[in-house]
């Protein structure tokens, strides 16, 4: 990956700021647990195994779309890197 040009590297890396990383982690966990419960409930009430699996797949695509690509709203508090400083000559 180091041999690619810089613009390609940035797209593939998809950096987001640390606060958003934490939020994405928590959101994904709770969303998936809720999705499991909801899809089991729907599959039990409609008496169809396939329907529950389709609902789970739909929810999974939703959570992947909102968290995997590096959207701008995930990058609102970027890490501030300090400017380059020269060390004192000893």
């Amino acid at each position, binding site marked *: 990956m180091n041999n690619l040009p810089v613009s390609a590297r940035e797209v593939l*890396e998809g950096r987001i700021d640390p606060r958003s990383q*934490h939020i994405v982690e928590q959101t994904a966990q709770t969303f998936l*647990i809720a999705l*499991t419960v909801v899809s089991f409930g729907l599959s039990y009430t409609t008496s169809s195994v396939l329907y529950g699996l389709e609902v*789970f797949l739909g929810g999974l695509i939703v959570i992947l779309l909102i968290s995997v690509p590096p959207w701008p709203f995930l990058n609102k508090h970027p890490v501030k890197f300090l400017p380059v400083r020269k060390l004192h000559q000893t």
Partner: protein
Amino acid sequence: MYSTLQRLNHITSLATTYVMILLGLISIASYLRIPSVDVGKVEVKDLIIQKGRLRRWGARQEELASLKFDVRTDLNPLLNSYNTKQLLIYLTASYEEQTTGNIHDVVIWDRIIQRAEIRDIRAVGNKLPKSKVGRKGRGNVRVEEVKNKYQWRNPSGTFKDVEYANMTLHYSLMPYVGILSSGIAAVAQDPVIIPELIKR
């Protein structure tokens, strides 16, 4: 969570774990919710004993029982329940030998009833031939004057120690995901009497 690939990896691995939990919940819930079946009827019409051979290499001349029977039962609530993929129904004859006291169970006929038309992927786009029974009616088992599929022999080679046999129709429910379960779908009213050997 620091890069696109890492987020994709993490979220899909969480999702596969939760899919396994979902399938486990479905299998437990469907196992607890299996409906009960009204027991139907099996009638044996003809039963004869003849001398014959099994269709195998090195088979000896011994007594074989052939029969014709009727089965009527309705397995629709079982077939259309939550997690059923198909049903295997099989007719067993269970009898006891008088001299040795051994109890034998023989499967003499079986059939698979699928819940829906399972199509091959090569058939996508072609029209299905119109079936006689609708989708909801596939569980009506009604066989009349059917011969036994498998040859019925006694391990000792002769049926002279056997007086009567009980016929039962069992079913095995195969789910999409979960545990195999079985039960009884139809019983014969009285035990059937095994006659004498027909001498040619």
